[in-house]
C-alpha cells in the first residue's frame, strides 16, 4: 500500500468519526465543575511522607550515635553511621523527585515531559541501590569486643563468610542496578511485580526518549 492510500484510509476513518462521534456535554460540564488535582498530585503525599518519615528516623539514629558515642562499641557506631548516611542520600532522592513533580508541565512538548516523567520514576532505582548498599551493615552492627575475644574459629568463619557474602552482594547489586541492565533476567526477577511496573516502563520509555534526542 502506498503513502497516499494509507493517508486516504486515515481520512476515511476521520470522516467516519466526524459522523459518529458525539461529545457528552453534561459529563464534560461536570469536569469543569470539580476541583482537579494536578497531574502528579497522587504521587506527592507519598513522597512527602517518605521524606518526613526518613527525617524522623535520621534524627533518631543521629541522636543515638551522638549520645552513645562515648560508650557504644565501634562496630555498632560504624554500622549506624553508614546506615544513616545512606538513608540521608535516599531522602535526597525523594527531594529530587518532589522538585521534578513540581517542574512537570503536561502541556510542554511530548519529549521534554516524558523525559522528566521517566527520569522521575526511574530515579527510584537509586533508592533501591542505597537499600542494597546497606546489606552488610545488618551483619556487623551486633559485633562487640566480648564476642571477638570469646568466640571460636567456627563462629569467626561463619561470621566472615556471611559478612563477605553480603558485602559482595551489596557491591555487585549497587554497581549493577542500573537502567542499562533492565533487560537482564536477574534484574527482571528482582523488579518483578506490579509496584515496579511503572519503573520498568519508565526505563523503556527513557531509552526511546534518548533515541529520539539523537538526530539521525
Amino acid at each position, binding site marked *: 500500500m502506498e503513502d497516499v492510500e494509507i493517508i486516504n*484510509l486515515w481520512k476515511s476513518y476521520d470522516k467516519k468519526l466526524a459522523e459518529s462521534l458525539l*461529545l457528552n456535554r453534561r459529563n464534560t460540564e461536570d469536569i469543569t465543575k470539580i476541583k482537579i488535582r494536578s*497531574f502528579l498530585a*497522587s504521587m506527592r503525599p507519598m513522597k512527602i511522607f517518605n521524606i518526613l518519615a526518613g527525617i524522623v528516623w535520621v534524627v533518631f539514629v543521629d541522636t543515638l550515635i551522638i549520645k552513645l558515642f562515648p560508650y557504644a562499641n565501634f562496630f555498632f557506631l560504624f554500622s549506624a553511621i553508614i546506615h544513616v548516611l545512606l538513608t540521608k542520600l535516599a531522602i535526597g532522592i525523594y527531594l529530587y523527585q518532589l522538585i521534578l513533580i513540581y517542574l512537570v508541565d*503536561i502541556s*510542554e512538548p*511530548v519529549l521534554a515531559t516524558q523525559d522528566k516523567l521517566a527520569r522521575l520514576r526511574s530515579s527510584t532505582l537509586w533508592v533501591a541501590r542505597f537499600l542494597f548498599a546497606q546489606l552488610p551493615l545488618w551483619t556487623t552492627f551486633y559485633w562487640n569486643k566480648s564476642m571477638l575475644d570469646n568466640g571460636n574459629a567456627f563462629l569467626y568463619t561463619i561470621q566472615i563468610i556471611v559478612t563477605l557474602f553480603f558485602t559482595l552482594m551489596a557491591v555487585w547489586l549497587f554497581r549493577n542496578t542500573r537502567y542499562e541492565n533492565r533487560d537482564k533476567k536477574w534484574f527482571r526477577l528482582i523488579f518483578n511485580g506490579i509496584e515496579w511496573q511503572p519503573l520498568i516502563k519508565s526505563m523503556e520509555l527513557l531509552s*526511546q526518549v534518548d533515541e529520539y534526542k539523537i538526530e539521525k
Partner: protein
Amino acid sequence: MNPSDKPDLFIAVIQANKGIIYKVANSYCNNAANRKDLVQEITVQLWKSFNNYTDQYKYSTWIYRIALNTAISFYRKENRRKEVPNDLSGSILDMVDTNNTGELEEKIGLLQQFISGLKELDRALMLLYLEEKSQKEIAEIIGISETNVATKVNRIKKLLKQKFSTVKT
C-alpha cells in the same frame, strides 16, 4: 474573558477537537473500559491546563501535547483512577451505531493494529503524520527539530509500508 464563560469556551474547544482526543485514546488503549477512562483523564488534564493556555500555539497543538503526554503515561492506571473523582463515571465521548463491516473497516482496523504495535513515541509521530500535520507542527508537539521529524517519519513510514505489504502477500 469572563470566568463564567470559561466552561463554555472549554466545551466548544473540546467539541471542535473531540476527534483528536478519541484517536489518541484509541491508539494507546485497546481495551474499551480503559479507553473510556483515558478519554476522561485527557479531558480532566485539558481542563486543568486550560487556564494556562496561551495563543502562542494552536488549540490542536496544545490538545495533542496534553493528550499524548497523558496517554503515554496512562499505564499507571490504578493510581490515575484515584485522581479522577468517583462522581465522574459517565463517558465523555460516545460512538453512535455505525456499520462496521466491509473492506474499508477491515483496513482501518489493520492500520490501527499496526499503530498500536509501535513504540509509544513512534506511535505519537505516526498519528501526527497520518493527520497530515506539517513538520513544523509535529516538531512543536513532539519537541524535536524539523530535520529529526523528517528522518523519524521516513523510518516509520517504511515500517508501516512493510507491514502492509506483508499482509497483502
